[in-house]
C-alpha cells in the first residue's frame, strides 16, 4: 500500500474527550461491567456503528490516545479497509493509508456515542446490553 510522506501513519487516534467511555468499558474487573478486553475492540465496534448510522465526527484538536496498527492484526486491518471502500465506493482509497485510517477514526468518534448510549446509559449491565444489541 502506498504511503506518501504526508499520510504515512502507523496508528489510529482516539480523541481524549471520549476516553472515559473506553475506560469505563474495559476497566472494571467484573466482566458484566466490562464487556470488552481491549480498546481496539471498542474502536472497531464504534466505527461499524458509526458507519451503520451514517454518522461521522472529526476529532477535536485536543489531546489524543493512540492505538498502533499492529494491534489490529490482519483481520482488523481488513475491516478498516472495508470501511474505507464502503465509504468511498471505490478501491482507489486503498492507496492512501492515511485516508483509510482517518475514515475509520471519524466513524469511530461518532459511533462511540452510540455505544455509550446503548451500553452505559441504559439500565442493566453493559455486557447484557451489548448482547441485546448484537442479537437484535
Amino acid at each position, binding site marked *: 500500500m502506498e504511503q506518501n510522506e504526508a499520510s504515512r501513519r502507523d496508528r489510529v487516534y482516539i480523541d481524549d474527550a471520549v476516553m472515559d467511555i473506553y475506560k469505563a468499558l474495559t476497566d472494571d474487573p467484573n466482566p458484566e461491567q466490562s464487556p470488552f478486553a481491549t480498546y481496539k475492540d471498542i474502536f472497531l465496534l464504534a466505527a461499524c456503528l458509526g458507519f*451503520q448510522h451514517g454518522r461521522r465526527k472529526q476529532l477535536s484538536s485536543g489531546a489524543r490516545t493512540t492505538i498502533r496498527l499492529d494491534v489490529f492484526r490482519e483481520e482488523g486491518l481488513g475491516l478498516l479497509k472495508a470501511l474505507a471502500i464502503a465509504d468511498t465506493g471505490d*478501491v482507489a482509497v486503498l*492507496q492512501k493509508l492515511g485516508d483509510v485510517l482517518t475514515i475509520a477514526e471519524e466513524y469511530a468518534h461518532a459511533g462511540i456515542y452510540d455505544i455509550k448510549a446503548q451500553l452505559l446509559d441504559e439500565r442493566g449491565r453493559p455486557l447484557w446490553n451489548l448482547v441485546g444489541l448484537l442479537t437484535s
Partner: protein
Amino acid sequence: MKLERLTLENFRQYYGRQRIEFSKDSKRHVTVIHGVNGSGKTSMFIALNWCLYGKDVVENIGNLISKEAMQQIAPGELVQTSVELAFSHDEQKYIMRRSVAAVRQVDGTIEPYNNEEVIMKRIIASGEAKDELSPGTVINAILPANVRTYFLFDGEKIDNFARPEAVSEVKEAIYLVLRLEILDRARKHLKEMERRYLKDLVQTSGDAELNALEQQIKQEEVVQKQAETRYAEVQREIELARQRMTEIDQELREKAVVSQLQQEREQIEASAKVASKEQENLIEEIQTKTTSAYMIVASPIIAHALAILDDKRVKGQIPSNVRQQFVEDLLQRLVCICGRPFAEDGSEYKSLLTLLENSVPRSLENEVLDTNNQLLVFQANGDNRLSEIKRLMQQRVNVKERIQILEARLSELELQLEGSPLEDVRQLEKKRQHFQADVESYIVECSSLEGHIAKANKQIEKLTKEITQARKSSDKAKHLSRKLELAQQGAKAIDEKYQQTADDMRLQIEAKTNEIFKSLVWKDSHFQRVGLGPDYNLEVIDRYGTAARPELSAGERQVLSLSFITAMAQVSEEQAPLVMDTPFGRLSSHHRNSITANLPSLTSQLILFVTDEELRDEARQNLEPYIGAEYRLNFDDATGCTAIEEC
C-alpha cells in the same frame, strides 16, 4: 601611571609620524607644550584621549585622518592614522597603539577602510613584548574612563565645580573618583538579588507544605491499617460462622427426624454452588465472545465492500488473475496469451496496451487482491460468532433456571425445619439462619473494605510522590533562604557603611581642598576655609562663618575648582598624571602665578598645553625648576599641518 612617549601618525593636522617624549624625572616632572591657538594643542590632547579610550568614549571626535596625507596619495590607496602611547604603571612598561585607516576615493573624498583597532603590549624584564589581549580592561584598571576628565583635564571646564549649580557635579566627581559608585552599585545589585530570592522563595513550597503532606500520608496509613485489620477480623468471623454452621449441620443430620431433610439441604447447597460457578464461567465466556462484537456488526459492511470489489473486477478494471507483469511480458515478447505472435503495430498489440493502461497500478492491484481475501475470511468468522453467543446465552438461561429451582427447594426445606415440632431443631435452624445472614453481611463488608484498602493504597502512592517533590522543594527553599539572608546582610553592611564612607571621603576632600586652596590664593585673603558640606556645595567660608561664593572673583572660583580637582586626585590615590589643556587661560596673572608655584607639588607628573600668553614672566619662572621637557607646536598655514619642535 607615568606617560613616557606619545607618537602621532597622520592624526588631524599632524602629518607623517611625529613624537613627544614626556619628562619622567622625579623632580623635573613637568612637560610644557607651547602653541598659539589653533596650532594643535587640543588635537594632541584629543590624540592622547583617543589612544587610551577610543572614539566611543571621547566626545566630538570628528575626522581624525590627516587631510594632507589624503592629498598625497593616489585614489584607491590607504592612509594609516594612528596614535601610540608608551607609559608605565606599577613598575610595568606598556605600549598602546590605536589606529584607523581610510581609502581615498576618485572624487577626493575619504572612505573609512576599517574600524579602529587597538593593540597593547607589555614589556617584560627580558625586553620581550607580551600581548595584552584586552587593552580596555588594562586602561580601565589604571585610569577608568569615567574619571578620566579629572586627570586629563580640559581647561575650558576649569570652573565647573565652583559654580553654585555645580552641586551635582561635585557630588558626581566624588562618587566616581572615590569609587563610591562601586559601593552603590554593589548595594543595588545585592538588593536586587534579595528581591529575586524572596520572589523565588514565595513560589517554592517550604516546610509547611511538607508537614501537611506528611500528616496526610500518616492519616491514610492509619485508615489502611484499620481496614486491613478489620478485614482480617471479618474473614475470621466468616470462618467461625461457617464452622458453626457445619457443626449445626452435623447435629441436624444426627437427629433422626430431620436427618433426611438436612442431607437434602446439604446436597442442594452443593449443587447451587456448582451452578453458581457455572454461571460465572459462562459470563466470562460470553465476554470473550462479545469483545469482538465488531465482527458481527461488521457483516453488512464487509458484504458491501466485497460487492464493490467484485464490481470493479467485473468491469474489467481489475484483471482477476492476470497481472500487470504478465501483460508487460507479453508485450515485450510480442506474443499473445494463446501463444500466437503479433506485430508491434498490430491490433493485438494495441489491445494489450490498452489493457495495461487501464489496469490499475501494481501496488493497488496487490492490495485489492489481498483485501478481498481478508474480507472473505472475516465474513466467515463473523457468522460463527453470533451463533456462539446465542448458544451461550441459552446456556445461561438454563443455568439460571436451575439455580432458581434449587433455591426454591432450599426455601421449602428451611421452612420445614423452622416449623419442626422439635424445639431444639427449631433452635438449631434459627441459629443456622442467623449465621448464614451474618456470613452474607460479612462478605459485603469485605468487599467494601477491599475498596477502602485499594483507595488508601492509591492515595498513599500519590502522596508519596508529592512528598518526594515537596522535600526537594523544601531543600531548595532552605537554600534560597540562606542566599536571601546573605544578600540581605551584604546590602545592609553597605547601607551601614556607605554614608559613613561618603562622609569620610567628603571630609577628606574638604580638608585637602582647603589645604590646596589656601596655598594657591593670595595669602592675606579674608577667607577662612573651604567648606564641602553634606549638601555637596563647594564653597569658601569667611571668618564670620558665612559662604562667600558670590563674592569670589572669577579667578578665585577657578582656583577653587582646580583645588578641588587636585585634592580629589590626591585623596583618590590614583597614580595618574595631570594633563591640562590650557588651564590658565582665564585666570588673572596673580592667580596664575600662585598656581604655577604650587601645582608641580600636587602631582607626580604634570603635562601642560599652554599658549605663550598663559606662561610668561613670573608664572614661567615658578615652573622653571620643574620643567623637564618643552615643545613647541608650529602650525603652517600653507599646508595646514603642525610640526612638533623640541625646545
